[in-house]
């Protein structure tokens, strides 16, 4: 069960790297700009940290307000600092 879960996570990570690769190339202004493979791995890691940071900070905000559900207003409160930190 655990190994299956791990395998799934690996696949998940691999899929996400594929997404990041396409995202980066779609955002480049010049067509000839390329990425090497390390860049995709590192950027996937960085975006994952960005999302986790957003989620954890919103959760803390919800916790401080004693809410059971993390709502948009909690995210709205942490978003300025989050963007300044990245």
């Amino acid at each position, binding site marked *: 069960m655990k190994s299956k879960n791990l395998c799934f996570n690996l696949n998940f990570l691999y899929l996400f790297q594929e997404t990041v690769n396409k995202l980066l190339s*779609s955002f480049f*202004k010049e067509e000839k700009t390329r*990425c090497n493979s*390390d860049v995709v791995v590192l950027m996937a890691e960085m*975006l994952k940290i960005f999302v986790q940071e*957003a989620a954890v900070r*919103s959760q803390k905000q919800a916790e401080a307000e004693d809410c059971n*559900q*993390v709502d948009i207003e*909690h995210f709205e409160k942490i978003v300025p600092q989050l963007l300044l930190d990245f």
Partner: protein
Amino acid sequence: MSLDKDETHQRLKAAVHYTVGRLCQKIGQDQSKEFSRQTIAAIAETTFRQCEIFAKDLEAFARHAKRTTVSADDVKLVARRSTALSMYIQNKSEELNQEKKSTGKRKSKDTEESRDQGL
């Protein structure tokens, strides 16, 4: 052409949204707090925009170094704003380099294995 581009953007956004949803679910499970759908959508949108900023920075850094290929050094520059993040990215990059050095020969075997797992 522009319609085509819009569609790929939509699909990429959907992919990001899915990943964000999964990550939020995982974090929510640990603390037994649920994320509202709106929050997940907002985080996904922010991530998408942030990725655009990252990509443009990467391209600019690479061009400044007179390269057309983005390298790991450019990612380190993107991560420079927060010390902890830049340390983390540097360690990760070193790890990747070492892996490449030590498993240069094993790499073809690894990719075969991962392909098997994919099936």
